[in-house]
């Protein structure tokens, strides 16, 4: 089967994210970059599906030229080739991103045939737009379910499981389909040294996308108000147990 996985290069921050002076982006001076966690799982899902069913997996990203790093990483863990839609003007809004991806996927399919499955992450780690995969699916006229915590393919359909308040739901999507994957669907493998070295030699195509901007515009980033708590230390070790239970009684959860 043929699979396309769409990923996004994002910073790998610590517990405090600094913002550049102009408030326009995350200060990445001391940060490394990674692939959004959900998308790492999408890559892993694609690798497993190809291992099971044969075929080929393409990893696609839209982002700065440096996002080639994330493509090669994906290749080092089982993707076969990469396509970079290189932007030079900062982060694109969700509509514009989806339009560009749709165009790119259409072009890839025109050359090599349709993808049976296109995988996204549930949402990007940074922007958290929750929509690019859905927009691409709609533009391509394909079924799409987000939030997959289980994914398998059989008999021309993708079986998707996801968690809901009421329980574990199953969806059966006829291929070709689009699925948004959520962390927990698998435990992504790490690259091997050989995988890493091979990925350096793999084919990564690059081109400049163009698409019209959408209607959601970021103005400025800001840090959430610091949650500082005057922590009351109830004690040290097991001797503190009665004080803890006093607090529980006060809060009324002990009934």
């Amino acid at each position, binding site marked *: 089967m043929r699979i396309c996985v769409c990923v996004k290069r994002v910073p790998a921050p610590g517990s405090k994210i600094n913002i550049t002076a102009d408030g326009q982006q995350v200060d990445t001076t001391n940060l490394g970059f990674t692939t959004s966690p959900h998308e790492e799982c999408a890559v892993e899902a694609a690798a497993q599906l190809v291992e099971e069913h044969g075929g080929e997996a393409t990893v696609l990203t839209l982002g700065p030229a440096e996002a080639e790093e994330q493509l090669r990483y994906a290749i080092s863990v089982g993707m076969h080739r990469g396509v970079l839609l290189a932007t030079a003007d900062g982060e694109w809004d969700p509509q514009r991103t989806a339009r560009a991806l749709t165009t790119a996927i259409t072009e890839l399919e025109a050359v090599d045939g349709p993808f049976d499955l296109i995988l996204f992450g549930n949402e990007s780690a940074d922007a958290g737009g929750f929509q690019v995969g859905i927009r691409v699916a709609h533009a391509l006229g394909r079924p799409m379910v*987000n939030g997959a915590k289980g994914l398998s393919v059989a008999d021309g359909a993708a079986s998707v499981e996801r968690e809901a308040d009421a329980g574990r739901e199953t969806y059966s999507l006829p291929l070709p389909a689009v699925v948004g994957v959520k962390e927990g669907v698998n435990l992504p493998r790490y690259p091997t040294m050989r995988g890493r070295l091979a990925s350096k030699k793999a084919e990564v195509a690059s081109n400049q996308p163009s698409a019209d901007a959408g209607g*959601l515009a970021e*103005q400025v*980033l800001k840090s*959430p108000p610091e949650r500082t*708590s005057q922590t009351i230390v109830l*004690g040290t070790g097991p001797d503190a147990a009665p004080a803890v*239970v006093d607090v*529980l009684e006060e809060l009324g959860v002990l009934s």
Partner: protein
Amino acid sequence: MILVLIEHDRGSLAPASLEALTAARTFGDAVEALTIGDTADGLAADLEAYGVTVVHQAHDDVLGDYGPEAWGEVVAQAVRALSPAVVLATGTDRGNEVLAQAAARLDLPFAANAIELRGSADADTLDMTRVRWGGSLLEDASLTAPTKLVTVAHHAVDAAPADTPGAATPSLLAVEIDPSLARTVVSGRVEREAGVTLATAPVVVGGGRGVGSADGFAPLQELADELGGVVGCSRAVTNNGWRNHTDQVGQTGTRIAPDVYFACGISGAIQHWVGAMASKHIIAINTDQQANMVTKAGHAVIGDLHEVVPAITAEIRRRKSA
């Protein structure tokens, strides 16, 4: 007019939707609701208290159970038919998914997980503050569209009834749904066993790397059971294979909002914190007084969780039996 998507599961209301209703009222415009599928018709009565004037009800064979494409199509048709200034939903998995589906169909922009909406609903542009990085960062953003599709971040607003109840008059919304959209309707389900879930539990006992092993969670489970709560964990725990990912609290796991969150041996990395920060009260148990989680908690016990947690359980049992 503000149209609010009411989330439900085969007729049972998702309480999270009440947060969107509460937020919708802040515009001062009329608040109308949309329920999808005839199983939800009975919800109209529940919505009166929240100031809803009209409840638009969409019926179709495809709408018997949840399906993101079909639901998104309903919202899209509602927008075309009703021309609301703003469509709101709560930023749950379904809320975000359905509004994104609707936005795709309408070719309109969509903003997920706002925590503050500013200005008039009828203006061309809606200004807002929305969540990035799962809440570690915020973004001031503007949404320019004839109808503004927005979700309100879950737990960002405390659901509250309106000062004046609404009529919640049912009104059938004529929709035409392509039967092929049944392709993404829930096709099977393993119902959850009765009891609280991580997302809804009043007490969560969370364990981190400090728990040390899968077996180490047994005393945490005992404490949770004693308090009618559930066990949660940090990403380090699932990465180590000690707990299933369904128990993971955090940016890529479950957002929780219990009355009490016990953070046991959890350092408090941002990934975890954004999932736990809606907790009303946090009690940290950690050997390190300087751990992030300790400094963010309301109460803390400095010590080894393996000793402290069983002692708390024993003390609760002692008082219960007294």
